[in-house]
């Protein structure tokens, strides 16, 4: 058992992006009374999960994927445990037991267990050539498949697209299957999605949209089930020898559940990121707040601010002094294969009557702004996203843009120099 000291022991379970960043904030606060311990199941901690695709495509190196400098943190006092997942939390003993049997004492514990690639219920288990695309291990598996492999990526969200791009850039034959009618359907409208799809098709990715896979065909090789193809609901059959599952993420809550935390879709937290258990907090993709779970970094960094403030400053019960976490429409900034995308607000509110649209296909430029009662409620930018933050600020401040309406779609520079001319004398 690791030594218990007189310091407050804050233990973070999960060394993904949220956990590492939290550890960094706490350690760099320089507080002598706090001892931070970070427990990770992967061999490597502190890397940027968002960069897996360029890593797979060999556009960046493993060094460049580093996100938090763990070596520096350790020298500042962080206790880092890798390759050894936590398996049990004992509130009675105030300790956490790792898979290796090691016990880690805590005063306060933060769940940052993240999420896993969702599995498709209708698929048989124990298949050798179905992979996720969530971590460095997945990347190293995919890096090692044959150059002539036929890959089917299931899921046309960000993760699936990134996997597909990474694979196709390695020279593999990639098909992407997505159940919605257009890719990135939570972030993009049809028009923007079509532009992106055309761009990705030009890279060589083949798309099968609007249908879920209904079954996998397989054979046995060396006593292992091996997938040989994917059949879609409409009967289309795609032959393959590798499947990448990217149908979404499922919050990892098994440890929280067994530890007695209240969970629904994920670990339920309040506005201070407190869970149902005293001295227990959660952050990141494993959390659920007001019924909502999180998959993008922006709200998680907001959570981080709140939690850091709480952990560093809390005295007893929360007061008004403590920052609170609230859900905001934070913008989704994506870069898929060099194409910039910016999506903010509730794009589901778009109708023919309330959407200002600009299309320049050849120039790969697309903009859509959705207006409700003179106020921007959502925006999608494709290609040139430089005006994204400006639209975002207008959404946040609920500014009335009626007077800018004619030039709004052209961005801030145009709106600032609006001039209409009088044709007559």
């Amino acid at each position, binding site marked *: 058992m690791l030594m218990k000291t007189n310091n407050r022991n804050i233990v973070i379970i999960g060394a993904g992006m949220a956990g590492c960043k939290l550890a960094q904030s706490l350690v760099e606060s320089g507080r002598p009374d706090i001892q931070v311990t970070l427990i990770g199941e992967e061999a490597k901690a502190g890397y940027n999960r968002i960069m897996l695709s360029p890593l797979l495509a060999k556009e960046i190196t493993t060094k460049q994927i580093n996100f938090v400098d763990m070596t520096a943190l350790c020298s500042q006092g962080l206790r880092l445990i890798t390759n050894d997942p936590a398996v049990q939390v004992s509130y009675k003993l105030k300790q956490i037991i790792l898979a290796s049997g090691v016990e880690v004492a805590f005063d306060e514990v933060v769940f940052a267990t993240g999420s896993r690639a969702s599995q498709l219920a209708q698929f048989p288990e124990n298949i050798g050539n179905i992979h996720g695309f969530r971590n460095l291990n997945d990347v190293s598996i995919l890096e090692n498949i044959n150059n002539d492999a036929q890959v089917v990526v299931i899921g046309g969200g960000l993760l699936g697209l990134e996997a597909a791009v990474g694979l196709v850039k390695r020279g593999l034959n990639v098909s992407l299957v997505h159940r919605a009618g257009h890719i990135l359907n939570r972030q993009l409208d049809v028009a923007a999605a079509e532009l992106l799809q055309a761009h990705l098709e030009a890279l060589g990715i083949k798309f099968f949209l609007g249908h879920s896979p209904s079954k996998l065909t397989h054979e046995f090789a060396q006593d292992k089930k091996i997938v040989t193809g994917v059949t879609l609901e409409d009967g289309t059959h795609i032959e393959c020898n590798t499947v990448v599952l990217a149908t979404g993420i499922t919050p990892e809550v098994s440890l929280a559940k067994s530890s007695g935390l209240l969970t629904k879709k994920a670990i339920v937290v309040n506005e201070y990121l407190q869970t149902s258990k005293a001295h227990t907090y959660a952050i990141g993709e494993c959390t659920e707040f007001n019924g909502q779970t999180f998959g993008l970094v922006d709200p998680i960094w907001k959570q981080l601010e709140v939690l850091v403030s709480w952990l560093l400053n809390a005295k007893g019960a929360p007061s008004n002094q403590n920052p609170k976490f609230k859900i905001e429409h934070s913008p989704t900034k994506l870069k898929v294969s060099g194409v910039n995308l910016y999506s903010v607000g509730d794009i589901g509110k778009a109708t*023919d*009557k*309330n*959407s*200002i*649209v*600009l*299309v*320049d*296909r*050849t*120039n790969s*430029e697309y903009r859509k702004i959705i*207006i409700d009662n003179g106020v921007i409620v959502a925006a999608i930018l494709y290609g*040139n996203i430089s005006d994204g933050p400006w639209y975002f600020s207008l959404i946040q401040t609920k500014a009335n843009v009626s007077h800018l*309406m*004619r*030039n*709004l*779609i*052209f*961005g801030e*520079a*145009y709106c600032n*120099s609006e*001039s*209409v*001319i*009088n*044709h*007559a*004398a």
Partner: protein
Amino acid sequence: MNKPLNNCSTKTTCPYCGVGCGVEVSAKAVLSEVQVTAKGDASHPANFGKLCVKGSNLLQTLTPQGRLTQPFIQGKPVEWNEAIHTIAGKIKDVIAKHGPDAFAFYLSGQLLTEDYYVANKLAKGFIGTANVDTNSRLCMASAVVGYKRAFGSDTVPCNYEDLEQCDLLIMVGSNAAWTHPVLYQRIVAAKKNNPAMKVVVIDPRKTASCDVADLHLAISPGSDAALFNYLLNETDQNNALNIGYVKSNTEGFDQALEQAKPWTEQATASFCGVSEQELQCLSQWWCSTPKTVTLFSQGINQSATGVDKSNAIINCHLATGRIGQVGMGPFSITGQPNAMGGREVGGLANQLAAHMDFTTLGAIDRVKRYWQAPKMATQNGLKAVDLFKAIEAGDVKIVWIMATNPVVSLPDSAQVRRALKKCDLVIVSECYDKTDTTELADVLLPATGWSEKNGTVTNSERRISRQHSFEAPKGEAKHDWQAICDVAIAMGYSSEFSYQGVHEIFAEHAGLSAFENNGTRDFDIGHFSQISEKTYNEMKPVQWPVPIGKPEGTERMFENGQFFTHSGRANFVPINPQKPAEKLSNEFPLTLNTGRIRDQWHTMTRTGRTSKLMGHIEQPFIDISPQDAAHLSIVQLQIVEVVSQLGSVKLRANIRSTQKKGQVFAPIHWTDQFANNAVISNLINATVDPLSGQPESKFAQVVIRPVEKLLYGYCISQKKLNFDDAAYWCHVTLEQGAHTEFALQEASATSTELFEKAKSLLSAKNVDIEAGEWLVYSNPIENVARFSFVKDDVLIAAFYFAQHPMLPSTHWLREMVTSQSKIEQHQRLGLLAGKPSNGVDHGRIVCSCFNVGENQINDALEQGVKNLADLTRSLKCGSNCGSCLPELSDIIDSKTIEHA
């Protein structure tokens, strides 16, 4: 342009307004190209090297597109010979059956004196009709009659130097800043040199000419005569009469003063709608300033009582003896380059020839002998308005229209159209194949244009100048005098109409002016009656009279106080001021005034050919006061329907703070060739002055209705597209490509529907709409939709639609279409926004010479430029022709107010 005839410089005169500026056209061989340039003739006494914006752009109007280059009969091309014989045969036939008055000429102040002379001679001496009238009827006929009543002759007493030498200049019914820009600039310069000089502008509107005014009297439309009766009365009251002059040199003073007596300050202020203080100021200046010139123009002449107004002015000058001396006189300035030349040959229905009338004792016989004419007309013919009525009535069966566009310019255009449709034979001599009038021609004759013509013109100060050709005639184009002579010869008058050259016509004309004259007639240019071709070609500008023995001509008339009346004294005419004929009513509550804009000439057949002159004002508009606009719920640039008893037009509303409540103003220029329904004459009653026959073109009672539920827009494209089904359209000339402004009835069209419309408009002109890229912007919240079609990075067409009439500036898009330049990556958003975000938009062009736009001017002002001189120095705007100087001052003033 064709290759110039000679590789040197040609001195000629400008074909636009009555100032008659000298133009020097130079051709220079540069490598294999011949570069032709035109600039003001520094030696010409009218302009001393200056040119206005229209004159500066003369060469740009000489494009071959749309030139008429061969004769047509009923739309079929024919040889000249066939056309001439058809015309001659038909004239002989018709006059044999119906008498000589079944034939008529309708001529133009654009013609040269020699063209005019042979037309007048053929009609009045050989066909035997005085049905020779001209568009000058619309311009200065009232001034002619006014002069004749007062002086016994149609004599302009003054010259341009008088405008510079006077201490008080009263401009009445003249917006010289826009209509006679070079003369106006001379006035501005004179005022600068003589700070004591006062300028009074009398005009219902605050025009650009008010820029130089010390006093602007914004009188009620048509109330001018009362103002001059008031001045006559004041002259008497303030002991400012020149009693000696009145006694020795005039007649009828007492009756005229008697009529003027009731015009007290109070009565006049009420009649004219100005304050008593303003009248006092005018009176004080008038009574105390001997050197006074009254400059008047169409605002006086185009009235049902235009002659009386002229005489009300002249009365004041006679009462003070302010005539015939330096810096004094009643000065009628003509609109057209050769209205004066037409008057000199007698090319009007109420004149015979050479300043002789049918009523002049012995004149008919004298002219008959001089011409050796077989068939003299013996009495006045039909004046323009009556002429077209007689055509409709079937009394006149042949009309030969030359160098004018009566379907646009005469009042009650619908009647003119009906008349020409009904007429047996409409002959139209024109330079251009498509005008509103050529569309109604039976025989279309290709005429030579300005650059191809030789002859003389007379400007507003009686100065005869040579016009020289510097290009060969285009195609089969023929000089008008030649076409007339050919017809006369075909009719059997070969010895009387066989001229070896145009100089022979001029010599004959000069000979007639001197024939049995002996000082009895003002117009005498006998010095030229034997002129040789060589001397004619070397002729320098000279002011008539130029009698034998006085080759230097005559600067000023009536210096000796002798006039051409029987008694030798000038006549006062008692004046009873009248308001315009058409009365205000509830049904037509607004008073329409008409006029010109700075950069267009008449019906735009020439000035409408260059984008440089279109840049100033692009579309037909109506000025309306903010109060009337608010009352009628009209927004800026909205299309409005302007309706009079006679007809209606559709124009852009231009809400102007300087426009008086109850009054509106529209420019006269737009024709069916440029806009679908903007011919202002459609609204104008054919009411004429009973003495001069001049129509009251500056006055109509109208009602204005905003046209609702329109979708506004424009299209800028490589090819001109067809917007015939639009509620409103107007073509704006570009050097390359086409710009159409429009308003569609489909106010509720969706973006998708408009996209289809844009595609079908392009497809209709055989543009492959699949062979390029479409950029799309749709904004359903404001009903804005824009589509740009690009091929190989070049803009093919941009369609902008919006519910609101305020659209983005067209300047950058036009530049892209005209230059066909490659659209850069960073400019693409501009194809839908109207300009690239980092590009410079110069805004609406104010200075056409240097292409300086409103935005540049505003920028310069923002950067601390304080006055006109600095502005001109920094941007060059206004430093060439100066036509835009008033507007520049306005902009500076409005900025100063904003910052105050």
